[in-house]
């Protein structure tokens, strides 16, 4: 995904052809002035919205470098005096921040890999193979699509307990490695691919496994990438499930770690800002680097759901 990852489209919509109309010079000038005024108005709205939506993060970054007395001085100071890292150090002393980061990274990677592999395999099976009970099984999958995750948490907890996996990284990723939504999304994707290439490969003597691996998976790459990115975002940010299974701070992911950090430093906001920045920065970097893929993935999942 490296070759196109960085080329961000400057314009999402192709420029419309200008209507060919002849006008007097005065009218032309008035129209130009009007369009500048209109686009200026639009930019004011967009800038205000950007400040509203991204401003809290700027304030978070600035606060994370301030001392507690700087952050609580009245009248307030906007910029920190020094780029001090004390708050980051304090956050890492108060909670095992780096273990939490590792837990988040490992569980997100395993969970995402599992989702992509298991969902792609099952999705291809449902889209292209014919076997007894296929439609009935798929109907069961579809009905599970309507069951929200929270309903399943207590029994899932029991399973993890019986497997002696409470307070392990495996507990974080195990249920989430499988998914109905991913299977459904990719099944729709496979079903929409043309059958000609498969037919040709079969005539060349390729078996079903080979066709799946060498023909269909590469064709489904946009769908796989979309599923992977959506899983990364939801896995990284999830709170309720890890909160229930992992109560040992060293085994928590960052989401639960933040709630825990809040218990350690209830009122020291500079430290809380530093800790929460560590928690969100990896995903923001992934998003900014893979921006176009993420946005396409979201649009794609929206069109398929």
């Amino acid at each position, binding site marked *: 995904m490296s070759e196109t990852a960085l080329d961000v*489209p*400057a*314009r999402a*919509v192709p*420029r*419309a052809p200008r209507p060919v109309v002849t006008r007097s010079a005065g009218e032309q000038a008035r129209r130009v002035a009007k369009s500048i005024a209109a686009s200026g108005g*639009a930019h004011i709205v*967009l800038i205000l*919205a*950007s400040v509203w*939506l991204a401003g*809290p993060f700027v304030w978070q970054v600035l606060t994370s470098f301030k001392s507690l007395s700087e952050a609580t001085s*009245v009248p*307030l100071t906007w910029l920190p005096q020094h780029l001090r890292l004390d708050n980051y150090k304090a956050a890492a002393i108060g909670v095992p921040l780096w273990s939490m980061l590792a837990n988040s990274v490992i569980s997100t990677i395993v969970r995402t890999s599992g989702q992509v592999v298991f*969902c792609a*395999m099952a999705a291809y*099976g449902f889209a*292209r*193979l*014919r*076997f007894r009970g*296929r439609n009935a*099984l*798929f109907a069961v999958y579809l009905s*599970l699509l*309507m*069951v929200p995750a*929270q309903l*399943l948490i*207590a029994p*899932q907890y*029991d399973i993890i307990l019986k497997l002696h996996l409470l307070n392990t990284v495996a507990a974080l990723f*195990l249920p989430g*490695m499988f998914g109905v939504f991913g299977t459904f999304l990719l099944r*729709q994707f496979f*079903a*929409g691919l*043309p059958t*000609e290439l498969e037919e040709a490969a079969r005539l060349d003597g390729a078996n*079903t496994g080979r066709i*799946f691996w060498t023909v269909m998976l590469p064709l489904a790459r*946009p*769908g796989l990438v979309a599923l992977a990115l959506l899983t990364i975002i939801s896995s990284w*940010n999830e*709170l*309720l499930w890890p909160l229930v299974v992992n109560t040992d701070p060293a085994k928590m992911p960052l989401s639960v770690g933040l709630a825990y950090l809040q218990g350690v430093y209830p009122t020291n*906001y500079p430290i*809380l800002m530093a800790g*929460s920045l560590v*928690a*969100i920065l990896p995903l*923001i970097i992934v998003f900014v680097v893979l*921006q176009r893929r*993420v946005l*396409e993935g*979201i649009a*794609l999942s*929206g*069109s398929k*759901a």
Partner: protein
Amino acid sequence: MAPNTMTDPTRRTRAGRVRPPAAASLPTRRPMRRSDAGWALLLVGPATVGLSLFYLWPALETFYESFTTSGPFGGHTWSGLHNYATLLHDTELRGALLNTVWYTLFGLLGVPVSLVLATLLAKPGRRFVAGYRVLMFLPAVTMPAAIAIVWKWLYHHDYGLINLGLGKLGVQGPYWVSDPHTALIAVAIVGMWAGIGYGVIIMMAGLEGIPPHYYEAAKMDGAGPLRRFFSITIPLMSPTIFFMTVLSVIASLQTFDLIYVLIGSSNPSLPQTRTVLYLFYEHAFTQNDRGYGSAIAFSLVVLVIAVTAVQFKLQKRWVHYE
């Protein structure tokens, strides 16, 4: 590759169209091969085992447990509809339900906001689109736990930006999240804020599907920007607006993270802010009353499905498909 435009999923113009699951017809054109069964087992088997263990079985288990009463040492006994009868008279649940409805209604305010922002961004020739999009999408990739902490700081009574700003205007700001009168609105604002970036992206994908010559033709006929927005954008975007509405309602009905981190278990305003899902968490995991918790969770699912079904029913009145 054959240009099969009806089913090509990469065709972005179809973004936002919601089709009921019934439309997912299974392909039937290929005759069955003998080797398919083995491959099917190999490919579908692992996912089916995982989903049965971690999803299907737990769903059935929760349904069963909702008819049981949990004992103090973890066992449970069958108690029929007792939990559901209790549910009907539970004032805490009624309060939580009301709070959840408020969050849902507030969250819906984000839908028109995202449509307006997306329309401004999608205008041909608009500059800095990529920059705006990144900034607006930041809340959507940020974990709710972090969002809650950042907003808690903004809402801080003495040093929060919001109250400092209000102070400049001569207004004494309230204790936003711990005052029962303002806590609900404080949470609702954050919930709406967090959903807008995602909405903008979905709406922009939908706007790409509107042919530009519609706007050109309307312009030639003298329609102003507002008229074009209401007569072209809104009707043609109605499937996407509908999709966003459904998603927003489902997400709001399942609010948990914001309450857990922004409000917290010891906050005096918890009864005025907690959601149905938070109440489920309290019963099932802090009070170890799994049976009653399951009844709450199951009722929430029924509510989500019912509300979504009503939305699908009502869409015929206002959603235009080509």
